[in-house]
């Protein structure tokens, strides 16, 4: 059996939260490492990729990795200008993310590194940089197979389904669960009976398609950014209320759920309250789902 693990390098959404009150959960933005022996896959390149890059540069055995990006919002790419392996000539760094072709992926990855926002561009990267064009079939990175799907978030945003060591890991950092259901509920008064029946069918279809996206997950890492109160204020921002995430994971028969993309305004105490409530929901549903808070530095054997 290979040595395989998953490590959280950044678990925050929106922006970094390097505050003393937040550091039990962690302050860096989205970045998860999936390692199988010498193969390194990185999901997103938020500020969490900076300490990871610093660690990588200190070891001598591996000089190649693949970064898969869910999308190009800042909290998912802002670590790249400080990702040391990209500036090192003996490294090979490959990128994959939303885009019509490899040129568009390159354009999106490069866009944040230009004057006056940053002193050097990606042309200063000395590593062998490779942009992977969209694939009809599964992507592969060594023993890791990777599939992607569009999810509910502003712009073109992917969720990833990976197969590692016989386990299914699903990474959906940014996704607004049950969006259509809430939209229909909000506008129900404008719809006649026939329309209401059709939209109820559509809610079922969307629900099923959300379940299909995460079904059979041994490990699901999913957006759980808001409390119900904050979700009401921020509906349409492209993130989930943690209650919807948990219910979705229960319905889909997910084995282990990691609540992820924590709101930077929530300190350790607030996130612990979310966790306690999550446990309560799972118990009330008599579900076997194991729920965890994704915390920076947490390492899970796969």
């Amino acid at each position, binding site marked *: 059996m290979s040595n395989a693990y998953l490590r959280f390098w950044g678990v925050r959404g929106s922006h970094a939260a390097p505050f003393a009150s937040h550091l039990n959960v962690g302050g860096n933005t989205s970045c998860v490492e999936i390692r199988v022996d010498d193969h390194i896959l990185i999901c997103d390149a938020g500020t969490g990729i900076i300490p990871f890059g610093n660690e990588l540069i200190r070891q001598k055995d591996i000089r190649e990795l693949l970064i898969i990006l869910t999308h190009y919002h800042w909290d998912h790419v802002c670590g790249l200008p400080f990702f040391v392996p990209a500036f090192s000539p003996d490294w090979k760094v490959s990128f994959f993310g939303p885009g019509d072709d490899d040129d568009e992926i390159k354009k999106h990855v490069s866009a944040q590194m230009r004057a006056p926002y940053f002193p050097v561009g990606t042309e200063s990267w000395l590593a062998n940089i490779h942009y992977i064009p969209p694939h009809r079939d599964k992507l592969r990175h060594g023993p890791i197979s990777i599939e992607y799907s569009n999810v*509910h978030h*502003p*712009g073109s945003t992917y969720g990833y389904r990976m197969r590692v060591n016989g386990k299914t890991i699903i990474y959906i950092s940014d996704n607004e669960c049950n969006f259509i259901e809430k*939209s229909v509920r909000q*506008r129900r008064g404008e719809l006649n009976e*026939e329309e209401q029946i*059709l939209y109820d069918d*559509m809610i079922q*279809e969307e629900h099923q398609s959300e379940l299909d996206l995460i079904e059979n997950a041994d490990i699901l890492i999913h957006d759980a950014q808001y409390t119900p109160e904050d979700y009401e204020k921020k509906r349409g921002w492209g993130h989930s209320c943690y209650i919807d995430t948990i219910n979705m994971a229960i319905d889909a028969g997910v084995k282990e759920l990691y609540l992820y993309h924590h709101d930077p305004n929530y300190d350790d105490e607030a996130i612990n309250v979310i966790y306690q409530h999550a446990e309560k929901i799972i118990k009330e549903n008599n579900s076997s789902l194991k729920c965890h808070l994704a915390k920076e530095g947490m390492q899970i054997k796969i």
Partner: protein
Amino acid sequence: MGIEWPTVVVVDNSPAIKKLFERSTRDLGIELLIFDSAADSWAYLNNAKPDLLILSIILPDKNGLTLLNDLRKLPLHKNTSVIMVSSKDYAQDRLAANELGVLDFIPKPMPMQTITDVIVKYTKAKTKSG
């Protein structure tokens, strides 16, 4: 010589939305073609220009805006009339749609009358009895 009805193409994989389009246009003199995926629609759109193209954003095989971007690269579809109908009603998606020259962006759920009105507005379709 018979009357040639305007062609309206819908790309959306939801069976419920398919029914919604069929019912909201049943009295209109249009030829309605509905495709479940970007790939299926491409086989038709590669050679044909509808009078109105209605696209969803989240499709099983491709983002609807990516499909539109691909279509706009074809001389045939440089100016094809396009409307987005999507539950993905985010400012970033609306902006991307505007940049690709869509005429309208209708968020789901919409009443059937909205569909009828928008098709009449952009195709000048008439009711079958009229």
